[in-house]
């Protein structure tokens, strides 16, 4: 029953957000601030995630395929495609659920319990337009950009790990990666990160917006936002794979 009530609240929040999306002048400033916070400020953690994901994947793939049946370049093919189709989007999204999602729910939740949202509403502002729309739009636009960065750094990490460890030369790695590079895989990754951006920012905004009960309430809202974001990222990953692959 509680789950249905929350689903109704979530749908209502999204409906209000959608209805006021044309009030651009109200949220323009916040939108650009969120582009910076969600996009620009997430680049270091996304690069770090990408590099290490690619590096570890290369070492493990080389270890598992350590026979004479396959050419060494197959490692580059497997790493490249795994990163582009799945890992850059999903691992990046899980990291961002912690970084971006937790910030959004804490920020909006604190505004709720300290009556800042009431203050906005009492002035005649639509608080959903002001707070939720810029965060969700930034998620939708910035996650695909971060996905591309994660994918590039992931392949670079794999290439570096392979050559530094002496498993396969960089040229061979790239040859393998190029052989199995299909542009539609990138499109699939971009579509996934677009959906993950929406899922994480909308769930986190929702949890923060309806937070109650002081510091403990904000803490609970943030925990729920992060956990639910991760669950729905994995769920939507499965649904998208079933639909689009």
């Amino acid at each position: 029953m509680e789950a249905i009530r929350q689903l109704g609240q979530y749908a209502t929040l999204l409906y209000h957000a959608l209805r006021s999306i044309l009030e651009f002048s109200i949220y323009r400033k916040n939108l650009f601030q969120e582009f910076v916070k969600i996009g620009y400020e997430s680049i270091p953690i996304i690069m770090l995630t990408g590099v290490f994901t690619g590096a570890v994947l290369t070492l493990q793939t080389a270890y598992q395929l350590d026979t004479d049946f396959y050419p060494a370049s197959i490692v580059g093919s497997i790493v490249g495609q795994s990163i582009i189709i799945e890992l850059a989007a999903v691992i990046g999204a899980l990291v961002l659920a912690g970084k971006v999602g937790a910030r959004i729910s804490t920020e909006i939740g604190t505004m709720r319990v300290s009556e800042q949202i009431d203050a906005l509403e009492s002035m005649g502002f639509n608080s959903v337009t002001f707070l939720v729309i810029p965060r969700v739009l930034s998620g939708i636009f910035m996650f695909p950009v971060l996905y591309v960065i994660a994918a590039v750094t992931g392949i670079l990490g794999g290439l570096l790990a392979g050559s530094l460890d002496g498993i396969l030369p960089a040229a061979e790695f790239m040859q393998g990666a190029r052989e199995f590079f299909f542009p539609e895989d990138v499109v699939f990754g971009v579509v996934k990160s677009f959906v993950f951006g929406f899922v994480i920012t909308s769930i986190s905004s929702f949890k923060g917006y309806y937070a109650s009960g002081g510091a403990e309430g904000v803490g609970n809202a943030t925990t729920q936002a992060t956990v639910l974001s991760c669950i729905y990222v994995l769920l939507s990953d499965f649904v998208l794979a079933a639909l689009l692959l």
Partner: protein
Amino acid sequence: MIEIKNLSKSFGENLVWENIKFDISDGETLAIIGKSGCGKSVLLKHLNALLYPDKGEVVIDGYKLFELSYAELRKIRQKFGILFQGGALFDSINTFENVAFPLRYFTNLGELEIRKKVEKALEMVNLIGSGDKPTSALSGGMRKRVGLARAIILEPEYVLYDEPTSGLDPQTSEEINDLIIYMSEQLEITSIVITHDMHSVLQIAEKVMFLDQKKLSWHGTIEEMKSSTDESLLDFIKASEYQI
């Protein structure tokens, strides 16, 4: 004019109060008193439709508040300024920007005019020169004064004060009370003040509403309160250690 008609509110199974009815005339200063947790702030939030009742209605200048569309409601809300209990200042921007916030979004004023208005408002609340301070660097009293400056910057017809003097030292409380009187007399603002500070009540209010036992237990003018024989009201006043 604000008319409150048979207002009742519950949270789940918990009845807050029922059948509250009273009118507030233009230019009047009304104090709503009662014990902590009796629903004073809940009542205040109904006057601006920040909360909705289970039944009853609030009529502002002829408009039935709970029947308005959201767009209409936003227009009515602009007639109000609210001073929240903790100030409710936006902590992502500094003091000046907090006060300038409504001007930037609801007026077409230029930067120079905004600066003049904000500085005038900050001067009125004795905070001139504090515009650059982050809100986290303000004391409780300063936060309330900034909240007050922001509440009146658009020159509202009604100002709602939620516990304006709670947690403040006597001197700062006195300053806040003087400001409320100034707003009412000089700017002809209708003021509704939630408080349990009887000193403030006697200083600022013309009329008093006493919430007790989940209803409007007593209401009248300050003079009527002084001569009242209502036991629960007298008990409340006695408990507040104030002699009238």
